[in-house]
């Protein structure tokens, strides 16, 4: 196990560029300078909105698509020189792409047959792979005689039976219903731990990414926005795009008006937000992130106490019961909407009522404004 983990730079992507000429004559930057390093037994997810280049990147690693410029090293050897059929990676396609003219056993055994694995060994490995994905005794059936979820498992078995160094999965769960999807998420994660190989998983479902991944790569417009653990991505998003794309967010933009005792006061369009930060300077423009679950509700009259500064006054517009919690849709004095997640037991407030949403200044995340900061530094 430890040996497997010993290759932190198993797959290295350096400055990968891929532009497409559209029929209308414009240029689509599907990949616009991607740099990425992936460890040998990592479950890594490519997450991003539709058209951000996820499939393109996967196709390039699999060998179905070429790169305009850049380099990819797999296990320290250049990958791009190899044709698709010589690459030690296997793909699970979104549409499964099972061979319709072959039965399940021959579908799963296809890679082994190509490589001339002896019949006995081949049958043993096919049975093992089908068992791993929880599908025994269907070898004789045709793909059309299986349900979508079962076909998905066959596609998985067909890929892992070849013992690839890396498995590429392009939105493999998107065609499944919610219950089956959640079950498969756990199974995929377990399978990855069992096999100990790298899974490069593509999804545009942020919940799926947060549940399954060791690390998430957030892509936007062919660029890497952030790479990090689900916790980092959720709580410390590196950009406004990431914070808005992942989870629900309340973002406050304004300028720093005061700094003391490691606390900074930010004036965001009339309301004041307190955050814990050593780096901020007075006058600096910033964006602050507060997740809905970071609020606590205090109804009615202005509260007293030390933390009275760390609160936002708002008016409740709508309260929606969503199980254990209530989701509160509120509006601040300046018109900005705020969303808060409050324990249902605490949420005895009426629409139209003035409320106070309290928070811990330590929970406020300062979104780095990369472009802005560097511009400021240049000016200074």
């Amino acid at each position: 196990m430890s040996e497997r983990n010993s290759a932190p730079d198993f797959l290295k992507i350096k400055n990968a560029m891929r532009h497409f000429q559209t029929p209308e004559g414009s240029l689509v930057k599907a990949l616009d300078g991607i740099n990425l390093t992936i460890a040998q037994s990592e479950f890594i997810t490519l997450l991003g909105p539709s058209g951000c280049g996820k499939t393109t990147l996967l196709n390039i690693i699999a060998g179905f698509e070429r790169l305009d410029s850049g380099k990819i090293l797999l296990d320290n050897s250049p990958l791009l020189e190899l044709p698709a059929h010589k690459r030690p990676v296997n793909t699970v396609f979104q549409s499964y792409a099972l061979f319709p003219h072959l039965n399940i056993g021959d579908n799963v055994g296809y890679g082994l047959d190509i490589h001339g694995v002896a019949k006995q060994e081949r049958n043993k490995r096919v049975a093992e792979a089908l068992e791993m994905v929880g599908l025994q005794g269907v070898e004789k059936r045709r793909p059309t005689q299986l349900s979508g979820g079962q076909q998905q498992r066959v596609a998985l078995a067909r890929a892992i039976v070849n013992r690839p160094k890396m498995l590429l999965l392009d939105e493999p769960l998107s065609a499944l219903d919610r219950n089956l999807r959640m079950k498969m998420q756990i199974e995929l994660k377990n399978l990855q731990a069992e096999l100990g190989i790298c899974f490069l998983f593509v999804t545009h479902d942020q919940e799926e990414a947060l549940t399954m991944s060791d690390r998430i790569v957030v892509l936007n417009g062919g660029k890497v926005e952030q790479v990090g653990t689900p916790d980092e991505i959720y709580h410390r998003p590196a950009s406004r795009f990431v914070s808005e794309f992942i989870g629900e967010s309340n973002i406050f933009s304004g300028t720093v008006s005061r700094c003391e005792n490691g606390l900074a006061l930010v004036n965001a369009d009339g309301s004041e937000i307190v955050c814990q930060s050593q780096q901020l300077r007075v006058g600096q423009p910033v964006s602050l992130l507060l997740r809905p679950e970071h609020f606590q509700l205090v109804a009615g009259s202005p509260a007293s106490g030390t933390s009275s500064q760390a609160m936002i006054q708002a008016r409740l517009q709508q309260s929606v019961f969503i199980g254990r919690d209530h989701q509160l849709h509120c509006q601040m004095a300046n018109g900005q909407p705020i969303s808060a997640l409050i324990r249902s037991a605490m949420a005895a407030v009426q629409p139209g009522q003035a409320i106070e949403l309290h928070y811990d200044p330590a929970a406020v995340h300062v979104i780095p404004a990369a472009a802005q900061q560097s511009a400021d530094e240049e000016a200074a």
Partner: protein
Amino acid sequence: MTTAFLRKLFNPLLSGYGALFMLFLYAPVILVVVYSFNSNPVNLMIWDHFTFDWYINLFGGDTPLKDDISYVDSTDQLLAALGTSLTVAALATITATVLGTSTAVAMARYRFRMQGFYRLLLFVPMVMPDIVLGIALLIFFVGAGIHLGVISIVIGHCTFLTSYVFIVVSARLAGMNPLIESASADLGANEWQTFRRVTLPLILPGVIGGALLSFIISMDDLVITYFISGVDSTTLPVFIMGLIRRGIKPEINAIATLMLVFSIVIASAGIYFKSRNAD
């Protein structure tokens, strides 16, 4: 209520029209089949009584018919023409199927310069008048010094049969998910292995259909073959054409019926293969 009434009125009319149309299509063919069993040796449209004599005569059997009322003085000639036709059809079908299939795969899977133009060129032989193609081929063979015989007919037939195979196979390829071929490559198969194990089995119904179509068309072709067949390489249609020059005799009905049966067998085989692979 009115629609129900109208339907009641029109349904029998519509069925009647359909029946008439079918009759129009098939009556001549049915007549040929029926009169091939007519024993009247003088006027082939006046029914005398039932007989197999024309068929027996065709195959050189002894019949009470007098020699001068039949064309086929030697069954050997007829069989030789049939043999030439079958040889030509077999060779042309094999060649055209290989060429047409590989062209269709290339057109569907690769992008290259002037692709649209080449695609257009593949349609041209099908719409070109047979006479033009026949004359062109004749001039070409004579100019190039190619002996007019089985080989020249095979080459001539391939020029247009390839187009038919190309179109039938292309239709099949268009209905195929190209990701399936990517999956094959992903699992380690090189291009040839992918073609052998994935592409070919999936387009096989189209390939077989195209081959059968080619076979029938090749067996049937008269005009082009007429120009490019030599003296010693007469095909069945050209041979029959020669017979008819000597006047229409009842035997022709028997020959036509046999050719009809042959075509129906080939077409049925095509439909059988198509349905068997359509899961």
